[in-house]
């Protein structure tokens, strides 16, 4: 098995695939890449399976040494990645020689970058997924000295695809959402405020959930605890919006006013704390 060694862990990085399915009834979060579009793009460009595990890098990246040759692609946020000090482009296949050092620098756009390796990272499959998740897998974040195994690839990928989808969703300030189960309980004025007001993520936000700094006045009562999903926007009695993300819990007791679209979740995953965003409620077809 080929390996990449972590020299510096950076702010927060973890191994993620598309998540675990079929275990929410046991209280197990789905997990998986916060921005599934960027993770999927990285695998697609390399010709990996769509469920291959990638490294999710949040804001400040790790520094790592490839102990074996590899082909890699970086997608999502532009965090000025460098190989041996030489700046790299996102969405391009890069050939890495054994011993070369990959590092991540200054943020140019987005919040989370994805590093895919041809063949996929080989973290242990637990409950159907390679995704790291607190309380479920032995690790939930990258640490100094870790050696991440990946499959040594036999064939080299050539750029069969260039970046086929636009990265506009990464910089968009608009988050699409569908009406949630309790949306109709909001007053018309409250619905209007939800769409008009700018929100931004608080510092405490993480893979479990994003709390908004701005409040939305409301008179909704707590509900009987009910199922929630990644992308469920809960409204607390004090008016705080809590948006559940990929590692979010499976049930919750606050009214679920809107449900983000998949693109909405991916866009939100790319917002740094404090960045303005607007929720656009769209109707079901």
């Amino acid at each position, binding site marked *: 098995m080929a390996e990449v060694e972590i020299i510096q862990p950076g702010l927060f990085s973890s191994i993620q695939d*598309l998540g675990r*399915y*079929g*275990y*929410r*009834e*046991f*209280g*197990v*979060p*789905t997990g998986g890449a916060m921005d599934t579009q960027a993770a999927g793009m990285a695998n697609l460009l390399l010709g990996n399976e769509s469920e291959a595990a990638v490294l999710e890098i949040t804001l400040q990246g790790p520094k790592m040494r490839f102990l074996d040759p590899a082909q890699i692609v970086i997608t999502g946020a532009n965090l000025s990645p460098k190989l041996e000090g030489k700046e790299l482009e996102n969405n391009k296949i890069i050939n890495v020689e054994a011993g070369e050092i990959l590092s991540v620098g200054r943020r140019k756009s987005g919040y989370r970058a994805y590093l895919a390796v041809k063949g996929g990272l080989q973290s242990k499959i*637990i*409950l159907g997924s390679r995704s790291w998740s607190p*309380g*479920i*897998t032995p690790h939930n974040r990258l640490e100094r000295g870790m050696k991440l195994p990946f499959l040594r690839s036999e064939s080299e990928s050539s750029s069969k695809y260039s970046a086929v989808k636009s990265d506009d969703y990464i910089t968009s300030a608009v988050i699409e959402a*569908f009406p*949630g*189960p309790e949306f109709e309980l909001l007053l018309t004025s409250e619905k209007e405020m939800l769409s008009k007001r700018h929100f931004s993520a608080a510092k405490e936000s993480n893979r479990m959930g994003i709390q908004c700094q701005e409040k939305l006045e409301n008179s909704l009562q707590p*509900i*009987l*605890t*009910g*199922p929630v*999903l990644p*992308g*469920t926007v809960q409204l607390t009695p004090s008016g705080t919006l809590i948006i559940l993300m990929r590692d979010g*819990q*499976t*049930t919750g007791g606050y009214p*679920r006013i809107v*449900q*983000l*679209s*998949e693109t909405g979740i991916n866009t939100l995953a790319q917002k740094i704390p404090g960045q303005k965003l607007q929720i656009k409620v769209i109707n*079901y077809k």
Partner: protein
Amino acid sequence: MAKFPKIKRMGERAILLEFEPEISLEILEKVLSLKKYLQENSLKETVDITTTYNLLLVSYEYAIEDAYSEVFNLWEDFSRTNISFKIESRLFQVPVCYDENFALDMVEISAAKDLSKKEIIGLHSSEIYTVYFTGFLPGFLYLGGLPQLLHFPRKIHPRQTVQKGAVGIGEKQTGIYPQSSPGGWNIIGNSPVPLFDPEKNPPCEIRPGDRIKFCPVSLEEHREITEEVRKGDFNFNFEEENG
């Protein structure tokens, strides 16, 4: 009159079925019967079915165009068949050590409720609790049946870390923390049993519809069971029940 269950979409890949908003065994039986029916009747494989007191959520791995009609048709078939499913229930004996080493909030509850420690343990361990669903944390069981005398508000300042296995009381509920986590419930004991094991499939032994009874154990017994769990020798003690 609203007709139950109501069927609502929840985003691009999930459908929510709502029964009457109440906590009752009757509703639980409806919810779990419908879940069983959906699982047995060809819902696509990559589906999660999450249930709570009165709600059932079907969520797909990918956005599916006709998910809504698939669930809706199955629901219609289910309601036409008019079969009342018996929920297979098992009664689990769950050991709890109420020793002061674990029972961080026992003194406070005892004083506030004017109940002795012995009375609190007696009340807590003589009841049979029904498992309504699993949520909040992997393996966290929502139990119904806490005696009213033991209802007690959550702590004003939640603890940063509640120990794995901690047995707590929060408002009208009691439960066991399956892993260390921040938490606001009042802690009155600790159970050494493994409620969630990611290395096993399914990862939880105790299911919605099962019932549990807490059995007081000493510190020494708690230690012994912990050791059994560590070695992988632990087996749950339960008996089958019929409806």
